[in-house]
């Protein structure tokens, strides 16, 4: 990152923390948690212990971090090396990210940035300037992406509260600060589960590895009655809904399924993970020692805030999680696609100098599509 950009972001982030101590708190049982942070242009510092809000605020002011994290795990000695921490339990955590939904809109708001010469262009095989094929993709998610992720979050919450019988009082949803949402489950009977057990739970939630026998189609002598019914609980009911749509189509569809054979049915069930399985990030949920972005902190991939959502359906991250000031900042911007923040449209920018509100400047610098102008 260029020196001007680094200085700008450090100051902007520090200012945000100074102005918003009310939004950033240590979570429950803070003494048992591990904390970590990153600075711009630097690696992760972890295995820290912070006991109170005051300790946290002091750390933010002293270090001006780019990202702040707190463990989902609870330990006897959170600041010791991993092997000596004495793990007690861990909150169940989920991350659903727009990039994993593979939505068709993504190509409309994705550009590529050449790793060799930093040229930004529409997606193509090689850099138009230096012909390098080492390319990064830069995507600024749109409202459609956010709606898609919200739908997944609601499906996840439904499974958690019905199939897994988790009290919704113990479920908290946050915007991740970039292009997804995080879901926390605290104080549940699942807290004691290790990674392997959580992996099985992940397959359940993603609807992976389903067997035709379980969903009504044994190898020999399939019987019409054993196929799932629309009124069934759990995956049976959801599979029935996906397969039959309505009760009236059940009989006809079963006849076809049986005549197509078990292998075709297996295939169908496998494909269903894309349509009815919830697209959670397995690496996050299986990790019982993860340090997860702290609520109220800024995400250096976007400069947006990781914010708890009271009503996810109404929540608009590009308005509500954009909490940096709006004084004008001169930038050199290069992004050939329009985007919107705080109800204001920006771009497209063709490698041009422009003046934008500070929140938009921070967003674009974090995304790597603009630099703070020298003049």
């Amino acid at each position, binding site marked *: 990152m260029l020196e001007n950009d680094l200085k700008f972001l450090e100051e902007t982030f520090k200012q945000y923390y100074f102005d918003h101590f009310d939004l950033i708190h240590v979570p429950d049982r803070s003494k048992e948690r591990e904390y970590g942070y990153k600075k711009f242009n630097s690696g992760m510092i972890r295995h820290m212990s912070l006991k109170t809000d005051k300790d946290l605020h002091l750390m933010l002011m002293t270090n001006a971090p780019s990202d702040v994290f707190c463990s989902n795990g609870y330990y006897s000695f959170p600041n010791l090396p991993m092997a000596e921490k004495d793990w007690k339990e861990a909150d169940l955590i989920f991350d659903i990210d727009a990039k994993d939904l593979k939505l068709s809109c993504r190509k409309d708001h994705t550009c590529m940035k050449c790793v060799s010469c930093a040229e930004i262009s529409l997606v193509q095989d090689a850099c138009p300037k230096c012909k390098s094929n080492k390319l990064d993709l830069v995507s600024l998610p749109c409202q459609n992406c956010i709606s898609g992720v919200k739908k997944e979050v609601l499906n996840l919450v439904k499974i958690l509260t019905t199939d897994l019988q988790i009290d919704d009082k113990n479920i908290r949803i946050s915007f991740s600060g970039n292009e997804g949402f995080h879901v926390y489950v605290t104080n549940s009977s699942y807290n004691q589960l290790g990674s392997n057990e959580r992996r099985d739970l992940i397959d359940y939630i993603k609807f992976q590895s389903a067997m035709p026998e*379980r969903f009504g189609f044994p190898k020999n002598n399939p019987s019409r009655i054993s196929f799932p019914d629309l009124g069934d609980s759990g995956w049976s009911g959801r599979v029935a809904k996906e397969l039959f749509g309505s009760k009236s189509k059940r009989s006809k569809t079963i006849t076809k399924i049986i005549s197509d054979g078990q292998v075709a049915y297996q295939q169908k069930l496998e494909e269903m993970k894309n349509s009815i399985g919830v697209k959670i990030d397995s690496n996050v949920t299986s990790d019982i020692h993860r340090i997860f972005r702290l609520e109220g902190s800024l995400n250096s991939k976007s400069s947006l805030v990781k914010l708890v959502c009271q009503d996810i359906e109404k929540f608009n991250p590009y308005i509500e999680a954009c909490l940096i000031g709006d004084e004008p900042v001169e930038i050199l911007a290069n992004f050939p696609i329009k985007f919107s923040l705080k109800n204001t449209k920006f771009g497209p920018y063709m490698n041009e100098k422009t003046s934008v509100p500070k929140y938009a400047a921070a967003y674009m610098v974090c995304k790597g599509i603009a630099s703070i102008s020298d003049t």
Partner: protein
Amino acid sequence: MISLGQDEIAKYPFLAEAGQYLKDKGFTLEQFATDPDLRIIVDKAYERIESAAEDKTYYPELDDPSEKETTLPLNVFSFLIAIVLLKLSGLNTLINKFSLAEARRAEKFLQRDLVSNSDKTSEEFAIKIFRDIFSVTIKKTGGYFVIPIPDYLRHAVNFHEREWKLVNRHVENGMVFLSPRESVRLIRWKLSGYIGSKIKSANTPSMSDGFEDKVKRLSALAKKFVVNTVVTGAYPPCIEHAIEVLNKGENLSHSGRFMLATFLLGRGQTIDEIAPLFKNAPDWNEKVTRYQIKQLSGETGGSKTKYVCPSCEKIKSNNLCYITPDCDNIINPMQFGRKRL
């Protein structure tokens, strides 16, 4: 501790405090070693271990009321003397085989007790075993048993078959529905582990002449499980540990077996070289093992995927990492040694 009646002790002899039981019945260990009338029990004890070593389940009939008086104590005593013989032999491979066979035997009784509508006491006792020994709260609902999901997952992760995955289970309101057979099968590994740990933690008695011959025969019996594979080259500590676990005849988790096999395949070893390493595993079956390694190597299987050794991070999350300074910041066990040069 669960209080035991005569019937329960015969079905689940591992719940008894061995020394106390003999004392209560008015016997001493020396009597079994010396009294020719008790020879039959020592012979039965040996047979019990022998059949376990051959992966057979010792399953005497306990139902014939005319024989109940004699068979009950005979069953309990033969179990207890088998433990004495195993302790004297000190052979972990046999202890593990024996524990697994005894677990399978107990499974049959547990299953029968769970469904015996006529005998409420047996049913309650079986449910009590689930709760007190395996911390599994099990409740009867119609023809099914329901278990809280977290309890289910803790046990089901020990299985490799897809049918045990939660997604292939009837789940409702935080509970998993199981048949009596499945409920009992669910705790097999823990039951076997429980029996094994009880045997391992028991005191080793001093050797008596009457037992010496049987113990010698056990050593000979165990010889066929000895691994003669030569392991060369530097292996990372996680792999060394996995091999050590297998050599001791202890159960290596699915992820542990996966790690070991993929690592050795990655180092260019053949299936013929790798398969014998698993010989001591309590559930060893040469055909199955060879098939599984073949699958991992990509030689067979629909996708022909060649599986690679998991990353250090994943190994860590599976509690299989035994990091030493020699690991030198590698991120995959395959890099071990290479980086140091």
